[in-house]
C-alpha cells in the first residue's frame, strides 16, 4: 500500500520538477505561467492524494480552495500579460 503511494508520489514529483523547469527556463513570461498552471493542477491532485494518505477528508476542501485561487490567479496574470501592467 505505502509502496504504491510512494511510486505515485515519485511520478507526480517528476512532473512537478519538469513544470518547475519550464518555469525556470521560460523563456518568456507566458511560458513560465503555463509551467505554473501545470504546477497548480498537479498540486490539486496532490492535495487530494494527501487527503487519502493522511486520511483527512478536510484536505479536499483545501485543494478546492487552492484550485480556485490558482485559477483566478492565472486569469489575472493572463490579463496582465496581455495588457501590460
Amino acid at each position, binding site marked *: 500500500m505505502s509502496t504504491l503511494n510512494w511510486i505515485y508520489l515519485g511520478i507526480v514529483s517528476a512532473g512537478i520538477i519538469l513544470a518547475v523547469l519550464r518555469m525556470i527556463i521560460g523563456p518568456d513570461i507566458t511560458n513560465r505561467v503555463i509551467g505554473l498552471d501545470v504546477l497548480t493542477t498537479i498540486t490539486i491532485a496532490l492535495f487530494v492524494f494527501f487527503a487519502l494518505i493522511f486520511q483527512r477528508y478536510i484536505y479536499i476542501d483545501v485543494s478546492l480552495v487552492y484550485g480556485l485561487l490558482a485559477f483566478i490567479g492565472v486569469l*489575472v496574470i493572463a490579463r496582465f500579460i496581455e495588457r501590460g501592467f
Partner: protein
Amino acid sequence: MIRKITYTIFLSIIVATLILFFVAFPFGKNKMGVGKYYLNNDIKQTGAANVVTAVTLDYRGLDTLGEVTVLFAAAAGVSILFYLIDQDKKKRERQVYPNFIVRVGSRIIFPFILLFGSYIFIHGHLTPGGGFQGGSIIASGFLLLYLAYPGERVNRKKLAVTEGLAGLTFVVFGAIGIFTGAHSFLFNFFPKGTLNMLFSAGILPILYIAIGFKVGSEFAGIIDDMMCQTVCGGEK
C-alpha cells in the same frame, strides 16, 4: 558586483546564524507549549472541531481582530492612494475587450464561487477553512467579474457598509464578554453545541461569518481600487 557579493555574504551570515539557532529546535520535533493546552482543552472550552479556529478566534481572538483591522487599514490606505484616479471617470470608460471564454466562464463560475466562499467560512470551525479563506474566495469572485466585465464596478457603498457592520459584529460580540460573568473580551458565551455539528462552538461561527463578510468586502474593495487603476484606464 562587489555590492552583490558583499550582501550575499552578509545574508549568508544571517542565514547561517538562523540555521544554527534552529538546530536547537529541529524540524518535526514537538515544541508545543501552550499548544498542548489548546489541543487538550479545545473541545471542552470552545466546542470547535478545528483547533486552529479555536485558537484563531478564541484563545488568540484578539490577534484576529487586529488582523482584520490591519486589512481594513490597508484597504483604506489603498483607496486613499487611488482616490484621485478614482475620480477620473473619463479614463474609466475605456474598456478592454476581454476574452470571450474568460467572460462567459467567469459569469457562470461566479455564483459558485460565492457559494463556495460562504461554505468555507460557515464551516470555519469544522474544516481548515475560515473567515479569511472564505472571504478571500468571495473577493476573488469579484476579481473574476472584473476580468470579465472591466469597467463595471461593484457598489462601494454596500461594501463599506458590509465591512463596517461585520467589524461592528466582531467588536460587539467580543465586548459582550466583558459584561458577562467572565469579564473577558471575546468570551464565548453561547452554548458550545455538539462537536462537528454546524451549530456548535458558540460564537465562533458568528465571528467567522463576520470575518468572512469583512474580509470579502475589504479585498473586494482593494481589488476594485486596483482594477480601476489598471482595467479602467489608469495607465498613462
